[in-house]
């Protein structure tokens, strides 16, 4: 086994890892050696083709098909240089005060997170998109909401030079999204941070990491790793885990830390989601333009958030319920489809958690809570109302007994809703916001880290990703992850003299 030494090793290169790398990178000028270890590949610009299965296989963990233990929900998260910031839509939301206050983490204030979040909003060029880039899929959502007097809002998005490919979730083919792969990581590398791709961290030991570097598979996208394939031991005086809310808890569990950290893996939330699809009588612009420009936030009262969205043929087909003629009829009307994503606000509970299997692979145990199901159901029928108000002639409703609702039956929505049924394993649910598992708090009995991401009892080990969230954020999380990672980096900078 080869041995390599660094002062600081950062595991993962997404919103958390990219931010920590950038914020610590000035230390390289003082002679410190810093490495980012990323399991996924680093793609060249020309490899972002926008082809659905090809890109999903290259950029997502398990090709986007990571399933919960019972198989009833798909969890999508990135596995590439830049992590999930490569495959999100760039929606940039400040942490909600209501949520941060409710988290009630000693030492963590909303004011501090908000200040840091605004720094990253500016750094990532988050802004409201010009009207000329907004397609009818979004405009009809606004129209429907306004007709119903709903408080529709526009998302700030972190794009620069967007051509409106609509392919954000497959990695922008025009490098317009200002994710960690475009902003924080390149800056960190310019300052001297090394990024090692195809490098999976197997276990964490006392100031060491056991890692395995994989060869580039034949025909795969991305550059080979900077390192030769094989097993390595990395000695690092400070280790920062930023592998995400599934892989960071799993890594610590694989490393035998469950005994000293009884909350490890617990508190997992994910914003379970599904799509509601409306068909219009005429083609609309939907697969062109930024796909996610508006939202309706009903989290506080009704436990759901509606967001505009536009997916690709397979994901759309998979995300609609049922099969056969009714399903095909919607798919065949693709240029006339309007889509709304319903996200539910789930709560940290005693059951939902990250565990590992015998081989040490992550296993997510997830049960749909009554609150989340209520949020999905209310959100689904609110979305249907909006679609009909916007002029849809029929709506695909995944939880209705008959999944197609004609406009003539729009007045019967309350009655249809009353008979609707959410059935795990039948209702197609997916999640793209995995959170929790290494929650912040005041001590090991109730949490895994302190409010600066330091793992209880291990002064050299930090966490800086969405696994820190002690409960659901109720909104798209990347800016909050960056704000928390900024706090972690600040604490490390302050303590470098003592820790090295």
């Amino acid at each position: 086994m080869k041995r390599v030494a660094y002062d600081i090793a950062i595991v993962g290169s997404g919103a958390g890892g990219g931010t920590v790398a950038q914020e610590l990178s000035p230390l390289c000028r003082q002679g410190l050696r810093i490495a980012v270890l990323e399991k996924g590949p680093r793609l060249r610009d020309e490899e972002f083709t926008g082809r659905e299965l090809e890109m999903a296989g290259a950029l997502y963990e398990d090709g986007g098909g990571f399933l919960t233990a019972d198989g009833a929900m798909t969890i999508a998260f990135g596995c590439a240089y830049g992590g999930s910031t490569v495959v999100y839509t760039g929606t940039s939301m400040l942490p909600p005060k209501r949520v941060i206050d409710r988290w009630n983490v000693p030492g963590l204030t909303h004011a501090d997170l908000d200040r840091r979040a605004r720094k990253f909003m500016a750094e990532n060029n988050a802004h409201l998109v010009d009207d000329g880039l907004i397609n009818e899929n979004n405009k009809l959502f606004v129209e429907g909401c306004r007709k119903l007097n709903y408080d529709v809002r526009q998302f700030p998005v972190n794009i620069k030079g967007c051509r409106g490919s609509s392919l954000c979730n497959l990695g922008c083919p025009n490098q317009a999204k200002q994710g960690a792969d475009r902003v924080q990581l390149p800056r960190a590398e310019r300052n001297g941070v090394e990024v090692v791709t195809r490098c999976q961290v197997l276990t964490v030991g006392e100031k060491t990491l056991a890692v395995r570097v994989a060869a580039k598979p034949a025909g795969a996208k991305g550059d080979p790793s900077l390192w030769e394939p094989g097993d390595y031991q990395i000695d690092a005086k400070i280790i920062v885990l930023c592998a995400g809310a599934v892989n960071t808890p799993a890594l610590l569990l694989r490393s035998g830390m469950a005994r000293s950290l009884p909350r490890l893996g617990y508190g997992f939330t994910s914003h379970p989601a599904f799509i509601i699809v409306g068909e219009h009588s005429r083609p609309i612009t939907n697969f062109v333009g930024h796909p996610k420009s508006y939202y309706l936030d009903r989290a506080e009262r009704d436990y759901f958030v509606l967001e505009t969205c536009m997916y690709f043929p397979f994901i759309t087909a998979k995300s609609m319920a049922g099969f056969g003629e009714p399903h095909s009829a919607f798919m065949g009307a693709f240029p006339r489809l309007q889509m709304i994503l319903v996200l539910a606000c789930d709560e940290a509970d005693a059951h939902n958690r990250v565990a590992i299997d015998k081989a040490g692979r992550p296993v997510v145990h997830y049960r749909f809570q009554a609150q989340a199901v209520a949020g999905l159901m209310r959100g689904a029928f609110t979305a249907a109302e909006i679609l009909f108000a916007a002029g849809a002639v029929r709506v695909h409703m995944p939880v209705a007994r008959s999944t197609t609702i004609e406009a003539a039956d729009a007045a019967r929505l309350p009655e249809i809703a009353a008979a609707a049924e959410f059935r795990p394993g039948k209702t197609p649910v997916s999640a793209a916001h995995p959170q929790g598992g290494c929650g912040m708090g005041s001590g090991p009995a109730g949490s895994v880290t302190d409010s600066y991401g330091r793992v209880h009892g291990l002064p050299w080990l930090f966490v800086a990703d969405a696994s820190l969230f002690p409960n659901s954020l109720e909104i798209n999380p990347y800016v909050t992850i960056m704000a928390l990672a900024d706090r972690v980096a600040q604490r490390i900078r302050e303590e470098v003299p003592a820790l090295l």
Partner: protein
Amino acid sequence: MPLNPDPAIFRAVVSTIVPEASALDGQGWRDLHQVVEALLRDRPESLKRQLRIFLRAIQWLPVVRYGRPFTRLRPAARARVLAHLQDDRIQKVRVGFWGLRTIVLAGYYGRPQAAQAIGYAASPQGWEAVR
């Protein structure tokens, strides 16, 4: 092919889930199988085994009710068999069908020809491609 030795059953299931698949020619089926094969290549052997078992169950369960296997049923009866699995009271059965349905939909809609057929034409050029 990961779902061998059940290609006939698989095709019957595909054509029930996506009726348009019955119009696929030989090349279309080869493309669909290729997508499915690529999708399953790196999946655990246990998953592939479960899929094969599930397919065989789909083939033989209808004998009890209809007196003939799935591949010899009319399309409407095939759809009823799959609908029963989709709505089964046991979650594991529903999840099994959902997994199979996912693979079928990937095989069919993962082909560029299918995207073209339904009018999906997203382009990296975005607005320039449509204006």
